[in-house]
């Protein structure tokens, strides 16, 4: 049995508590061990990626119990891809957290970071539906801690909303699992898939209920309209690097939808195309709502949050087809939107830190490093909106191509193209307020507010910020590291463009593997003698 599969879960699970026990008061050690933990996770993820690239579904039986009775972890191309994406994002954003000094603003930043990684990795690897619920809870409880990192009344209030929403979601998840267990009598995903495939159509009412409940739960995680209400306040009030890490959190919901509705409930099973019928209109509305939010908001952090909603909408349009071409385009866009969305949150955090914590879109005197930061904002904007030459353009092109023969083609193309224009205007407006018009302004007091009040020269006195909602640049340990990590995320978007050909072929293979559930039945349920 291949013990590498449990490593991405065990490694952070061991390092996290050790950091709390041994180096509670030593930030330097926490930083060193936190980065080492993320680096090791990345190394293990790459190793697993190489193992999974052959197209085999590798199964790890916990406690060596035979499959439908014990819990299994299963590694296929999709899981390996998500592991690598998570590890890369976590490492780069963690470096930003260190460079910007966010990790000094509260307790146990790096331990929580590792717990978050543990939950994410477990959710991507598990082959058991109830175990998926447990890993969801692990990643959620770590995210509650990270989300309120740094404190402040607004952040705590947003945190209460976030927790309440997700607790209701967890209750729904349990209800869905109870329903599915009552119908199929199993919680192992491959076993459940096989039983669903054999189920006669006249007995499928309760099964459909369970499937739709499950879809609702994952839609809450992914923030698909109308279950997106938790996202804007949560992401806008979370610390910059945490919001950037949350870019992968909403993708967990998308991953779970892909996993369940290709393996357990494919369109040729008794539940038919219910997933597509529900997701596609919701995805179109999600996209439109997100991009209109980008244009309409007056807060920079909310702009990034609405861009995240819009990216989920675009992604779900492709995923909703659940065929090879749609999934290939969707997975490509998922990688792109994770990197670009995270980069956007980091750039926004850098801008706000240099404006004394003022994240509202209004005229202020020019900020420090304005040239470099405006260039980063410009590039990130291009990537997020989907203009050539960065990967957002290729991703959207692939989605348009994949939906060319869809009965909803007019709606899909119309929504994607029109909302891209809306987002472009939104980003142009934000950029011109932040960087361009500042040069027209006299940095002297008297004319840099739209309310006509006398402004403060330079930075606002720290005393005014009773709750320091955003990290101030003067507190940061190594501002260069912030630039490097943001640059690395954008370099990822460039690499996605340059290596789009080989990557697309790999994603095509991933989608083909997902379309073949027999492979999962075989690996999980049949080939068990090798596990002894």
């Amino acid at each position, binding site marked *: 049995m291949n013990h590498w599969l449990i490593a991405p879960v065990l490694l952070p699970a061991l390092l996290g508590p050790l950091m709390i026990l041994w180096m509670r008061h030593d930030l330097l050690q926490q930083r060193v061990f936190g980065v080492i933990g993320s680096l090791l996770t990345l190394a293990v993820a790459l190793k697993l990626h190489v193992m999974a690239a052959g197209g085999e579904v590798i199964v790890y039986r916990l406690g060596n119990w035979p499959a439908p009775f014990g819990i299994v972890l299963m590694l296929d191309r999709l899981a390996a891809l998500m592991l690598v994406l998570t590890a890369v994002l976590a490492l780069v954003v963690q470096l930003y957290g260190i460079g910007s000094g966010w990790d000094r603003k509260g307790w146990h930043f790096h331990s929580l970071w590792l717990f978050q990684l543990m939950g994410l990795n477990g959710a991507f690897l598990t082959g058991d539906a109830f175990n998926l619920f*447990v890993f969801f809870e692990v990643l959620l*409880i770590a995210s509650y801690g990270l989300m309120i990192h740094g404190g402040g009344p*607004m952040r705590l209030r947003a945190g209460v909303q976030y927790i309440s929403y997700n*607790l209701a979601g967890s209750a729904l998840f349990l209800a869905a699992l109870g329903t599915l267990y009552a119908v199929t009598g199993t919680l192992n995903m491959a076993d459940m898939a096989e039983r669903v495939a054999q189920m006669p159509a006249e007995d499928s009412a309760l099964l459909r209920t369970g499937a739709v409940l499950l879809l609702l739960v994952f839609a809450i995680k992914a923030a698909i309209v109308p279950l997106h209400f938790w996202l804007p306040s949560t992401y806008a009030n979370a610390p910059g690097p945490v919001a950037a890490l949350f870019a992968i959190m909403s993708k967990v919901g998308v991953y779970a939808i892909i996993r369940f509705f290709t393996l357990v409930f494919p369109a040729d099973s008794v539940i038919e195309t219910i997933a597509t019928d529900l997701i596609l209109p919701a995805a179109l509305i999600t996209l439109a709502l997100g991009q209109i939010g980008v244009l309409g908001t007056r807060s920079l952090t909310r702009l990034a949050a609405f861009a995240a909603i819009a990216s989920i909408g675009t992604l779900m349009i492709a995923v909703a087809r659940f065929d090879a071409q749609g999934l290939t385009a969707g997975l490509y866009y998922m990688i792109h939107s994770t990197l670009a969305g995270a980069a956007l949150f980091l750039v926004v955090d850098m801008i706000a830190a240099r404006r004394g914590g003022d994240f509202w879109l209004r005229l202020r005197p020019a900020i420090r490093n304005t040239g470099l930061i405006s260039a980063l904002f410009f590039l990130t904007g291009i990537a997020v909106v989907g203009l050539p030459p960065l990967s957002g353009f290729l991703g959207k092109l692939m989605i348009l191509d994949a939906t060319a023969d869809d009965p909803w083609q007019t709606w899909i193309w119309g929504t994607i193209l029109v909302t891209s224009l809306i987002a472009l205007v939104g980003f142009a407006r934000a950029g011109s307020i932040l960087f361009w018009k500042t040069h027209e302004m006299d940095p002297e007091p008297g004319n840099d507010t739209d309310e006509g*009040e006398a402004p403060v020269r330079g930075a*606002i006195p720290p005393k005014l910020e009773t*709750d320091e909602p955003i990290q101030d640049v003067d507190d940061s340990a190594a501002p260069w590291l912030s630039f490097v990590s943001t640059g690395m995320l954008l370099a990822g978007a460039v690499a996605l463009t340059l290596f789009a050909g080989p990557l697309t072929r790999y994603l095509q293979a991933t989608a083909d593997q997902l379309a073949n559930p027999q492979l999962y039945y075989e690996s999980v349920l049949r080939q068990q003698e090798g596990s002894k």
Partner: protein
Amino acid sequence: MEILVASAIGAITAAGVYLILRLRTFAVVLGMTMLTYAINAFLFTSGRLVVDLPPILLSHDVDSNHVYTDPLPQALVLTAIVISFGMTAVVVMMALGAFIEGGDDHINMPDEDRLMPPLKTIDDAKQIEDETA
């Protein structure tokens, strides 16, 4: 018995949903607790309701026509209870923190979350300093 359990779960769920829709954190936390109780009972019934039977096989004899109750939902309920218990503790702490720092226990975000506040000025700073002094 089925009708009794089902209506009990339904009533608790309804109460929980009603409380979750309230605008104060205390009611929401209570509602969340109610909802998790209902869900735990629901999970328990997902293995079918039987009375007075052990959750293990007592005999290996296939012909003995031995009956038992499904043990798996009981394990699931235990996990769900532990997790929901921990999560309730977290949400209580968070609600308390938000109440102490934010000054009230409304669940909605205040307007300052969406509306741009006016820029603070040097005069404001002085005023705040005077007030705190």
